[in-house]
């Protein structure tokens, strides 16, 4: 019991600490790929600390919602992230929420983000929010469909159970798994506002989505939002890895050694995926906002196809 609690706690802490690192890594690799020297991978931590100590400049008609939103967003994202097994399965609170809940938690984070974007009443905020909900309205169903597929295969929506099942030999190689993986990656790109859907490192109005929403934020609020977004990235990476690449996942009540190896594995996965992401982002161009729907729509279609395949082929 105590161990379980401890492990849960460790995980929550781990994701919180590792998240900025992942972001920093991605930025660094991208910089290197562009033949730039690039900031150190620990730069995000410094930024956060600096932001935290700055004073907050609130727009005149910002409401209480504007001030509460960052913390709510952070909290929901963090809770979601801490429910995804990173290096050990069988988390004590895993039964409190299954995959669908995780999706919904991210949904509520997004909901408050869009509201925050609308709150000050600037044109950019509205622009960001409206585009965000458009993207989400396609990405979320796709995610749910992926969840369906996975749940069909593993016979459960509990993430721990799923990853344990994925470790077991009877998974086999399935078409629908492949489809679901691709769909999930596309959704992940969209939800983390990465290229080609959005560009986190620009303030060019034509391309902004995520940045436009948090344009009015400053100081600690901005810091919290930054942590939340890097948590989001981490969450998706660990989600993908724990479903499709669950190798090295330790069991919760395993020996410390196993846990440690599991942790090493996990960090390894983070590094690999971070590099892959950077390579991907540098190798393709940002697409126009109104081609995004087709892009995510394909994800939805693939996920739906995967789910249909599962529903038909299951119990045959």
């Amino acid at each position, binding site marked *: 019991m105590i161990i379980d609690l401890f492990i849960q706690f460790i995980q929550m802490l781990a994701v919180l600490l590792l998240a900025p690192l992942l972001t920093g890594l991605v930025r660094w690799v991208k910089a290197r790929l562009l033949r730039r020297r690039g900031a150190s991978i620990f730069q995000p931590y410094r930024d956060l600390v600096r932001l*935290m*100590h700055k*004073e*907050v*400049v*609130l*727009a*005149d*008609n910002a409401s*209480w*919602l504007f001030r509460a939103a960052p*913390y*709510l967003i*952070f909290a*929901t994202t*963090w809770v979601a992230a801490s429910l995804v097994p990173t290096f050990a399965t069988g988390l004590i*609170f895993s039964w*409190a*929420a*299954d995959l*669908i*809940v995780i999706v*919904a*938690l991210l*949904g509520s984070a997004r*909901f408050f983000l869009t509201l925050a974007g*609308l*709150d*000050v*009443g*600037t*044109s*950019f905020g*509205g622009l960001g*929010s*409206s585009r965000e*909900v*458009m993207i*989400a*309205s396609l990405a*979320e*169903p796709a995610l*749910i*469909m992926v969840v*369906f597929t996975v749940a*069909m295969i593993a016979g*459960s*929506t509990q993430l721990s*159970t799923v990853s344990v099942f994925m470790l077991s030999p009877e998974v086999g190689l399935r078409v629908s798994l492949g489809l679901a993986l691709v769909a999930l990656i596309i959704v992940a790109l969209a939800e983390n506002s990465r290229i080609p859907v959005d560009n986190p490192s620009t303030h060019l*109005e034509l391309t902004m989505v995520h940045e436009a929403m948090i344009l*009015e934020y400053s100081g*600690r609020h901005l*810091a919290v939002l930054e942590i939340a977004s890097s948590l989001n990235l981490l969450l998706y990476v660990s989600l993908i890895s724990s479903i499709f690449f669950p190798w090295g996942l330790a069991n919760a009540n395993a020996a410390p050694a196993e846990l440690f190896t599991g942790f090493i594995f996990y960090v390894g996965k983070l590094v690999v995926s971070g590099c892959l992401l950077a390579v991907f982002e540098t190798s393709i161009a940002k697409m126009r*906002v*109104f081609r995004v*729907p087709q892009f995510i729509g394909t994800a939805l279609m693939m996920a*739906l196809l995967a789910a*249909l395949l599962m*529903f*038909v082929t299951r119990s045959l």
Partner: protein
Amino acid sequence: MTPLLVLFGCLGTLLALMPVAILCRRFSFVSQLVYVTSLMASSTALGAVLFHLLINPTLASSLQLPLGLPWLGAHFRLDALSAFFLAVVNLGGAAASLYGMGYGRHEESPERILPFFVMFLVAMNLVVLADDAFTFLLSWEFMSLTSWALVLSHHRQRGNLRAGYVYLLMAGFGTLSLLLAFGLMAGSGGEFGFAMMRAGELSPGLAGVVLALTLLGAGSKAGIVPLHVWLPLAHPAAPSHISALMSGVMTKVAIYGFIRIVFDLLGSPAWWWSMVVLVIGGLTAVIGVLYALMQHDLKRLLAYHTVENIGIIFIGLGLALAFEANGLNALAALALTAALFHVLNHSLFKSLLFFGAGAVLTATGERDMERLGGLIHRMPLTAFAFLVGSVAISALPPLNGFVSEWLTFQAILVSTELPQWSLRLLVPAVGALLALSAALAAACFAKAFGITFLGRARSQAASLANEVDRLSLGAMLIFVVLCLLAGIFPGYVIDAIAPLTRLLVDGNMPVQAGEAWLTIVPIKQSLSSYNGLIVMVFIVTSASLSAFVIHRIASRKTRRAPAWDCGFPDSSTNTQYTAGSFAQPIRSVFGSSLFQVREEIHMPPQGSTEPARMTLRMRDLIWEKLFAPIEGLVAATSARLNQSQFLTIRKYLTLVLVSLVFMLMVVALWR
């Protein structure tokens, strides 16, 4: 003193209010009197039915009055199903009365509302209580009639007359279809008692016809696509607490009608019924929310959302039918529980939202979101309540809307147990529709709340709005609390629904009360489980913790300044996103086919200073393709036939001669 008698006591009180309201219409105290009394009566009734539902749900007490059909009498019955829906009805009624006590003050002609308000409550109660076809239909149509009168209470406003007309016409259509359905079930013997209908067996074909008729009848009242057209016209037209009743409660009474007939009276279902219901449900959900996204009239938006939620409920019902038809009773119970849970939830947050809209209406006199904005500063409590409602209806944890949707997803996930291929193909597609509608709902309420309450005021009225009175706020806060409770303690609700599922599909979900930490477990722990309480606690603690830590270790300094807006701040409020522009991306994705959206941008000629203009054209294809043709056909036919009414006497005589000769020939040939 059985609950049923208490119930009838309350109904009697409400009925007695009607003449009072008419006779004392001159006095100012009457509106308070009526609302207070109806509040007390409804809450008493609520207590009675809750007592029945929680203490002895299995036994059904019935009552017969020497009214209605002479040789049949009026039968009333209180079983678990009716108790559940009565709880929904009377909860809504009580809250509406409370809200009305405050809201009614601003009413210029209360005599057009009060008598019908109480009768409306009575009618809805009677529908749920009725235990024979005649009483059922009488109360059903009476319910429509009284609500029609309420829709017309502001009959001088443009469009309300038409709204009322379309509404009552559709209601008549529904009643007649139900009448046919009951006629088929009663058979040649004309046994109109529900007990006898339960006993009777129908041939599969006839049962299918009855299902179709019930879908037409109950569905048209619930607002399934494409029979929903009256709903977004009528619901917003009524005063807001009536809108809340119509949207939050009356549609549920329609759902009750469907459940009562299809699950209870009609006997064992055939599997293909579920196909029909599922398809209708999925389409209704998505189309409803898409329509809602296109609205910028706050109340109409809410009305269209009712359509969406009805779709979700029908998805649950369809799944329940599918499972029951294949003898998977436990799973049927799961699906049915999901549907009923959503019935409860929707009645909660939809009433809440309509109350909020009503508050905005009283404070600003505006329903058009394009003229609102920034109300969160002027009316913070209303804003908070509306926010909670929005989160709940967008199916976001930890509020109640999510739980029922989660249960529906679980039911979809286990539908691989179904033997029929077509169902296995259909269900995930419906699941996708459900997920899509959920996401769109979130988008829609981000828009509804964001444009109405956030940003800067878009009109004088909005900038001068004041918080509404305490009673209205009280009514809203009650629902806020209920939404939260139903969200974090779903287990109790599920257990309360269990008797219904036992009654209807004789199966029930595992008892949730025993689960540790108030978790809910649809089938078994390893499959899936959800704990609203833990999620809630986690979110709250981590949020407050982080806030606390940051404020403690880092800065807490705050400075107010003009908005930055990328360096181009603009004082004019017109630069904000409007409801229309917020929905534009989604419109461009989904709207092109369903609404035939056409956007034309007229740029001013070179060098001229006038602004560029964009015109947006949208069409309601469902109306244009389905109802307008019928309208036209009737008009054309009657115009054509009307020519025959202005002939010369000679021609009429010819008519007589011809018909005489014709009939004589018939007789001649008959021999």
